């Protein structure tokens, strides 16, 4: 089993005729994902990487049974693309697009929520369940089927860590890259219950960053509701306050969201916190040997 995606996942790629849309359609297919449709208004009838293109998500869903969307459309049109997919019945949308105004994302989040749809992202790598399916842009080479769940606010750092887990001889059940924006559709607190319920996940690696309080909230959740071992890492320990560290969400302001508060909260919740990414594989292996956190 896996989290959020399974053998029945059928992906529609919104913005499939763009460069990124095309490249990652190919990569998703190489990962073994059923990419059944693409959408670009005005391009109906063409194909991309052998996948039929439609004018609207509604057409794509009606004709192919697509049930998950991967969104690559440029930021000014991303809100419309998400609303369209939700309205067409899609209940899982991975938004890869970066630089979406957070005011737009507020609309998207609340609209999706009112319809029972889940957003991963924006500005995120998406979901990869080795051996099952991938919705997003994580590089195929870093994965290997296994029993470690990964939830991360980072992109490339996640690949680095996932690759480290693989090189250590372990593998992943599902990896979810949540994205580093201030407003994300799915946060750690939203994702943790999925892994708690997943019988094929034995442990979760949680990769956080400075900024916001998502990791503190995750710590609260872990303390109260999460039974599996957690290995965590927080990037940005040495980042100065007031400087935006690439991710719009990664900024320490007004003394909130520092690495120190996050590490302390996670440790208090019983998580093992790595000081550096390269420590993670050993800590994971050790925690797996020790078994359940409680």
């Amino acid at each position, binding site marked *: 089993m896996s989290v959020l995606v399974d053998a029945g996942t059928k992906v529609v790629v919104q913005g499939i005729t763009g460069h*990124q849309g095309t490249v990652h359609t190919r990569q998703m297919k190489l990962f073994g994902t059923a990419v059944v449709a693409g959408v670009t208004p005005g391009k109906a009838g063409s194909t991309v990487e052998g996948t039929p293109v439609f004018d609207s998500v509604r057409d794509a869903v009606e004709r192919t049974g697509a049930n998950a969307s991967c969104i690559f459309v440029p*930021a*000014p049109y991303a809100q419309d693309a998400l609303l369209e997919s939700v309205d067409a019945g899609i209940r899982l949308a991975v938004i890869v697009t*970066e*630089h*979406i*105004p*957070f*005011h*737009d*994302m*507020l*609309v998207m989040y*609340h609209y999706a929520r009112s319809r029972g749809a889940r957003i991963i992202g924006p500005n995120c*790598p998406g979901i990869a369940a080795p051996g099952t399916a991938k919705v997003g*842009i*994580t*590089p195929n*080479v*870093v994965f290997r089927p296994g029993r470690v769940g990964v939830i991360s*606010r*980072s*992109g*490339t*750092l*996640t*690949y*680095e860590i996932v*690759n480290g887990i693989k090189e250590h001889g372990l593998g992943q059940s599902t990896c979810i890259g949540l994205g*580093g924006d*201030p*407003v994300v559709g799915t*946060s750690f607190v939203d994702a943790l219950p999925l892994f708690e319920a997943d019988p094929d996940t034995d442990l979760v690696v949680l*990769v956080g*960053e*400075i900024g*916001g*309080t*998502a990791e503190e*909230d995750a710590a609260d959740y872990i303390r109260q509701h999460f039974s599996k071992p957690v290995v965590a*890492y927080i*990037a*940005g*320990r*040495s*980042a*100065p306050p007031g*400087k*935006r*560290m*690439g*991710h*719009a*969400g*990664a900024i320490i302001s007004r*003394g909130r969201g520092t690495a120190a508060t996050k590490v302390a909260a996670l440790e208090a919740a019983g998580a093992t916190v790595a*000081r*550096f*990414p*390269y420590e993670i594989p050993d800590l994971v292996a050790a925690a797996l040997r020790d078994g359940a956190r409680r």
Partner: protein
Amino acid sequence: MVKLAEWRGKDVFRTYGVPLPKGHVARSAEEAEQLVRAGTVPLPCVIKAQVLAGGRGKGGAVQFAGTPAEVRAAAAAILGLEFKGERVKELLLEEKLPIARELYLALTLDRAARMPMLIVSAQGGVEIESVPDEQIVRLPIDPFPGLTGYQKRRAAKVLGLSGGPAKALDRLLDALWAAFDGEDAELVEINPLAVVGDGLVALDAKVIIEDDAAFRHPQYAEIRDDRTPLEEIAREKEIAFVQLDGNIGVIANGAGLTMATLDVLAEYGGRPGVFLDLGGTDDPAKVTEAFLLMARAKPRAVFLNIFGGVTRCDTVAKGLVEAMRQVPASERFPLVARIRGNNEAEGIEILRAAGITSIPQLRESAQAAVAAAGGRP
């Protein structure tokens, strides 16, 4: 993010109908004096340095004047200041009002709730960080339907307002909400909000506009108050670039990996001075451009730490080799490279051909970068 100077923030407020003191910008002492002589700004007045840092009052960057001569003298004094690293180039002159009370209001984002948040405190006029938490009330505002009447009544109660000032608050909050929403702001803050007679007046204005919404607000593209010259160039080239106080240049891809790289460097005594996030690109020219920009920051050493995903290792290697070819010998810097991930073998081979060795482990490569910059180990 675009931080607006006070006078620009007040221009935004004016557009949306937030009540303001009478005032005008001046860029010289002569102009300041002329504004009060012409009656554009009534006397007595306040003269405020237009800098982005807080704490202007204590720092001498805000002065009061009762005559044109005093205005000129105060303006000249403030224009000479260097305030927390910013040179004062602009002043805002405003009428001095009879203030009954000073309050605090702001709208910003509540990330956890995924909603805008109204922040209200009766303790205005001081930095909000110094106000005890129990004297600050935070109200999440659902974007649908937006700010409501009962939230405005609650705010009035928290601020201890009734009658005329409460009615004024109702209108002012509508205007502030419209500004926050309409301008795609990250923050609109009024501190202090003054009770003046039966009304309210925004004595200060702090407005931060979200970069990502620039496509809806081209008018903010020109404002560059808060960036170093190199950061400005990087912004134009759409390269994420931050200058810190240190001497190792870091080029990585992805915000998280960049931060992790800083953390590792710091652990081994390195002081990262510039960091540059390549993000996701597959254009070698973009990589070259980034390297040339890095060269202009004159780092003692550069640490390249790439994990190939969207950005492939061979792309980075090609761009890097081209950049090293273009950098004049006098500006060369020691380079430590670590490239992993997609097309790793191809990338390593391209670097090797150019005489650059990729160190596969993050720890070892970071230690090498620190050593190259002349630090330990």
